[in-house]
């Protein structure tokens, strides 16, 4: 390539990729730098591990890391576990399959906050779910479902919002497996489970990893669902970070922010790796 062509390419890339690299790069740099004591908005700016040291001594910090990982992992797991059978079911068109697909994917269009509102509306103390359970005689009295201690509400909400996304990715992948290949497996004696384990899963592994990772990153960093529907005695990392920022403790917020990025990154890598190991029986090619 000539120098002139290089200049053209770089000029073209500058407003797009260039801007992204600069801005996100600066954000990451700022997070790391502030976590190490630089760029103080109030007092002295100097390098120190003080904020990390103090943070690592807090119980709430570990609780929050654990809670975020818990939410992220199970949201990704449930969404994908639910989406897989649906994707396989919807692989071949049948009467009404388009409609079912559209209904299942509709939550993609619903903004997260609206989803949270719809959800707490349904599960509220006098909400329709409680009424229904009492009506069928399953419960004697209404249960308090909102802000439950284990974060089940968030998991339901995350699954509702993210399953369609996983379904979108997996339907594409599952549909690209040819009928003949599945028929051949069947003809050779593979039952439903064997076909899934030996043919469908290995052939859709990259879409599955993509779905798991993207949902994991979104759910691990969740703020609004946690604030609205999550347990009141727990804090997600994002919530924790916002709490510090709101009280002007930027360096502490930065420590949590860097932790959150690290958790997202390492968690994604582990998830993708684990998927591969489980589905391919440890054989890496």
């Amino acid at each position, binding site marked *: 390539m000539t120098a002139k062509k290089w200049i053209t390419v770089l000029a073209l890339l500058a407003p797009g990729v260039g801007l992204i690299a600069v801005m996100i790069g600066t954000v990451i740099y*700022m997070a790391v730098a502030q976590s190490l004591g630089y760029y103080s908005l109030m007092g002295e700016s100097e390098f120190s591990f003080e904020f990390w040291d103090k943070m690592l001594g807090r119980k709430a910090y570990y609780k929050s890391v654990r809670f975020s990982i818990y939410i992220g992992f199970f949201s990704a797991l449930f969404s994908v576990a639910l989406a897989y059978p649906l994707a396989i079911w919807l692989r071949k068109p049948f009467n009404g399959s388009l409609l079912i697909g559209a209904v299942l994917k509709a939550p993609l269009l619903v903004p997260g906050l609206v989803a949270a509102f719809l959800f707490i509306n349904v599960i509220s103390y006098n909400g329709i779910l409680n009424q229904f359970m009492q009506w069928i005689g399953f419960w004697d009295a209404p249960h308090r479902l909102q802000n439950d201690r284990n974060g089940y509400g968030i998991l339901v909400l995350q699954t509702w919002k993210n399953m369609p996304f996983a379904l979108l990715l997996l339907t594409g992948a599952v549909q690209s497996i040819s009928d003949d290949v599945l028929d051949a497996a069947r003809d050779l004696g593979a039952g439903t489970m064997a076909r899934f384990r030996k043919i469908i899963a290995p052939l859709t592994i990259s879409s599955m990893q993509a779905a798991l990772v993207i949902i994991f990153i979104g759910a691990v960093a969740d703020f609004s669902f946690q604030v609205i529907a999550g347990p009141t005695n727990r804090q997600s990392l994002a919530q924790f970070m916002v709490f510090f920022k709101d009280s002007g403790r930027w360096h502490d917020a930065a420590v949590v922010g860097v932790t959150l990025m690290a958790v997202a990154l390492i968690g994604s890598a582990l998830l993708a790796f684990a998927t591969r190991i489980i589905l391919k029986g440890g054989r890496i090619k």
Partner: protein
Amino acid sequence: MKQATINKILMYSLITVCAVWLIIPFTMAVLWSLVDPVEPWTADKLLPPVMSTYRWAYMWENSSLRPALFNSYVLAPSAAIVTLLLASPTAYALGRIQFPGREVAKLITLLPLVVPGFVTAIFFSSIIFQLGLHAWRFGAILFAHSVILMPYAIRIMTVSFEQVRQDHIDAARDLGATTIERWKVAYMPALKPGIMAALLIVFIQSIEEFAIAFIVGSPSFVTVPTLLFSTLGQDFVRPNAAVLALILIVPNVIMMLILERLLKSANPSLSSGKG
């Protein structure tokens, strides 16, 4: 099993799925938004005792709904256009020029999707503070939205640019078309659906984006999502929140219908967004 039985089972499963998945939540929201304040909707009644559009009128008159709508609907189209303008040159390079490091460049475009939204929001606001730019919140949010939503626009436009056929360009050149005419004849027809799709997707995402609008905008700059968030917070009035939730969802549904049309008429590979 008989075909009729299977069909019946399918019909029932479809109805159940619809109900649990969508109809119940939305019906509840609509009903709540219609509850008239003269008589509360208590648990023992199936429908609200008195229904009216009072809440809608009330929210319109007495909350920050109007400024929020104004902000959201100025912000989103601006973000869509700015994003498209920033993304197009990169998309052109990625789609039509072979250069070493192209794959790396493609990976970098995904960065905003990998860094959690609240981390971006908080440290972006920190940067703004350091630079002393926090006064102009609209500009800051517009800029941030443009950057974090750029991956979608770049991805869609790259595919569009890849689909411009070289023989069309060559033919136009061969027939003596000027650069501008060449763009009009060979590029625009192939790019148009991509441009529309990119604009719509960025628009929708910007309308519902919460983290940056909340962190950078608060407390003075409200958008519909931040307003909804505060309504869901301390002084939670269910009917008012229902009104806001419904308002927030309307543009999405309309835009998606348009998008669906567009994608159907355009190349199918756009909609799948593989790769």
